[in-house]
């Protein structure tokens, strides 16, 4: 099992259970990380009233425990709310979104290639959680767009697409696009460290109530598939979930330094241009080892590279509670200093009385 799954099951959960075969019910076996922390938190909080005495002498100890309490609470809040995603940028390319490699979304892009006045496309996205539930989904219609709805016929969390053999009959009637040539077989979810799932889905798309056929969408199919209704062209595809930003990041240069006469990496550096029209920001930033960029509550750090050092991969961590550990650190330090000073004074007094 990979780190990611382990974390999800053991730490970022309330109860660790084993599934009862044949049902969705899980038999609770062990408390999960969140439950353990909550119990610890409650214990610490009640400890302040039940056990600690409020004498000056004990302030140090109390501060230390308060610091730990803050740390625990902050980390729990952080774990529940933080989002990790990635930005993959080629040299010279500008990007205004990051991608969550662990989640996919179904994107439907409505374009009007023949309309000279249309400057923007309409983009509709359906999250993985909604796709998992299968069934019919009606998208909120935009002012100039058609009414679109999608019926998820089948959802495969991890799959292996192969070319369809001519003898096998298609699973659904009226298949359009890649699904005519490709068949997918379900696989158990991946567990290896760097591997990712390849979800696929069979969907039927309706525009203004008319079926546009059944489509196979898969993460394994890189290119979006297209169809035309009237003068509008629709592109559909399953892609890593995107988080759009109100700013763009352009990769100017990526450098990969090595120590002389070796292939041991010395430094990775992404020189980027950050452009934020809303805040009138435009600046050059170097993101390199131990020097991330913090911007609008997110941290961008150098996580990898590709294509012979011409593409950078930045990890984007959204963590609104990053200051908490510093606060807790200060509390614990204060407590320790208090404790130390008290003991030190005691020691000096004892020495004096002995003398």
């Amino acid at each position, binding site marked *: 099992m990979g780190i990611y799954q382990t974390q999800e099951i053991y730490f970022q959960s309330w109860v660790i259970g084993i599934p009862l075969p044949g049902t969705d019910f899980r038999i609770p076996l062990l408390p999960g990380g969140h439950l353990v922390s909550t119990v610890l938190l409650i214990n610490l909080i009640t400890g302040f009233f039940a056990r600690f005495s409020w004498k000056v002498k004990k302030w140090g100890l109390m501060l230390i425990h308060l610091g730990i309490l803050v740390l625990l609470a902050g980390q729990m809040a952080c774990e529940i709310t933080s989002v990790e995603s990635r930005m993959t940028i080629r040299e010279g390319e500008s990007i205004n979104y990051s991608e969550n490699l662990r989640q996919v979304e179904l994107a439907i892009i409505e374009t009007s290639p023949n309309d000279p006045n249309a400057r923007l496309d309409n983009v509709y996205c359906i999250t993985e959680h909604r796709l998992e539930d299968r069934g019919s989904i009606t998208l909120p219609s935009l002012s100039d767009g058609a009414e679109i709805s999608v019926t998820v016929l089948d959802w495969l969390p991890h799959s292996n697409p192969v070319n369809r053999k001519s003898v096998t009959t298609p699973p659904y009637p009226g298949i359009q696009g890649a699904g005519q040539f490709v068949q997918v077989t379900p696989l158990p979810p991946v567990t290896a460290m760097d591997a990712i799932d390849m979800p696929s889905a069979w969907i039927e798309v309706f525009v203004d109530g008319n079926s546009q056929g059944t489509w196979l969408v898969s993460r394994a199919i890189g290119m979006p598939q297209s169809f035309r209704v009237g003068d509008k062209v629709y592109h559909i595809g399953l892609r890593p979930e995107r988080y759009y930003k109100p700013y763009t990041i352009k990769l100017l240069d990526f450098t990969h330094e090595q120590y002389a006469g070796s292939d041991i990496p010395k430094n990775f550096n992404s020189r980027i241009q950050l452009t934020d029209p809303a805040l009138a920001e435009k600046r050059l930033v170097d993101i390199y*080892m131990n020097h991330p960029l913090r911007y609008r509550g997110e941290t961008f750090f150098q996580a990898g590279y590709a294509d012979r050092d011409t593409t950078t991969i930045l990890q984007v961590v959204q963590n609104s509670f990053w200051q908490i550990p510093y606060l807790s650190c200060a509390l614990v330090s204060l407590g320790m200093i208090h404790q130390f000073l008290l003991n030190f004074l005691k020691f000096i007094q004892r020495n004096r009385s002995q003398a």
Partner: protein
Amino acid sequence: MKSLPSKAILILLLLPVALFLLRALPPAKITQEHQSQFDVHEFSALPVLMNGRIKPLDTIARNSLLALHGKSKLKLPAGPDGKRPPALTPQAWFMDVLMRAEVADQYPLFLVENVELQELLTADQEKAPGKYYSFIEVSRQQSEYVPVAEQASELDATQRSPYQRAVVRLYRNVQHYYQLKNSICSEGSEQFSRELASLEKSFLLEDKELKKTIYTQFTNYFGFVEQRAKLYLIPDETNTSWQTSGQAGKRALAEKNIHPTLMLWAQLRDAYRHTAPEAFQSYLGQYQTFLEQTDGPALYSPTRIKTEVLFNRISPFSRAMEIYVYLFLLLLIFWLSGKPPLYRVTHLLFLFAVILHTTGLIARIYLQGRPPVTNLYSSAIFVGWGCILLSLPLERMMKSGIGYAVGAILGFSTLLIAYHLSFDGDTMEMMQAVLDSNFWLATHVIVITLGYSAMFVAGILGIIYIVRTLTATEQAKQDAKALTTLTFGVVCFALLFSFTGTVLGGIWADQSWGRFWGWDPKENGALMIVIWNAVILHARLAGMIRDRGLALCAIGGNIITAFSWFGVNMLGVGLHSYGFMDRAFWWLIGFTLSQLVIILFGYFWGLHKSSLDHTS
């Protein structure tokens, strides 16, 4: 003994120590017929660049022999006269590798421990399977093992079978050796200096056709060397960088000028091959003069190179290990006999060991230009150092040699671990980019490592408590009481350091990755230590455990610390797994079991004792 004054005993005991230290000061004598005619030690002190660090040939010789052969000397088989020639020192062996490859190829160099691979290597030979194989013997089976190695290299290191691991190891070792022996020039060149001289002459040739032919030949030749050479031998003073001889040769073609040091390396090699010690000495002198006259400091630091050679020769950590053993034996004799002069000797010995250990540590910091802990090897050295420092105040409080015993046992064990970790190559390798922050290396890593030291000190105090309470004398009871106080103090210290270290680590993680905590295995390991210490303290303060319980819990801390230190690296996952290794896995299991046995024994002995107390 009684008739001897205590001073005489003191001298008698210190004498062997002085002797074995003196042993390290003069360079080891070269007894080989061929090498003894050359100034091996001056030659080994020449600086070269390898794997990103400028170091003396001496270091490369030692590390390579240890990595390929698994031993610090190379024993040669008996000659036709039935006499065994003396074992080769790393420096002497390395001279043959660089300059007389055809001789070095016959040395039984490569260590192969896997029986299956041994059988493969001896399949169509009369030789019986053994542990060591020469390059020639290995090359005969090249077509058999190379495909296996290439296939296995594609696999993840954790998924390889023991056989595959052995094959990959051999494959890499052979590659390393092959690159080393092709560093000055192609190993087949009979007289490289003459070839270079003919190239120099061709620069003046009028005949364009002939010139072109010669150039093409040399371009191919230098290209061949460039692809293979491991060492960056040629100091390039014009842009203060180092080049391989292949690169220098290509440049010579382009600039119509052969770099003087390329020529000197060729001449050194030829003089060595053709047993011309005077010529060798003169070229060596010229090379040294060249290094002195060029802008040395920009290219390399001569004092660092000198210090490193001296450091290698003295090997302070091996010396310190010997002293720890001797010290522990003396303490045992002291406890059994109760002679006070013996105790006085241990003061001196311990001080001596501390000085050696500390000097070694400082020398490494100077040589590397880094805080003391940069990899697993240096962490072992530093944990040991922390332990001996902690044992000094312990001894002041106990005054019965127990503090020194703690220091000697832990100092020896950690240095032994370090020694076994040094087989992987250069212990002062360059830092991976992710760790490249002297500030955090000097704070987070140091504090965490001192936390490990404290954990092990507490653990061993726990073990001593169990041993001391086997008897029920009045002295033993007093000692046990004192041990409990000390253990508690050290556990507090360990909690302080591991907590601070973990938080500092979290802050480093936040500064570089934007998150304080990521449930990475190394982070969990550190957290486990913190939690364990907190549990011990709270259990003790709440009266859930008493003296014996405290001792047993402290021994449990040994397991947790060992796991956090080595176990998580064996998992081979996460952002911190910078030192993957599988060799130590069984040792870790064994250590854990031994600690469990001690805990169980201590627990039942306690039960047994209290039932005795009740009945009496």
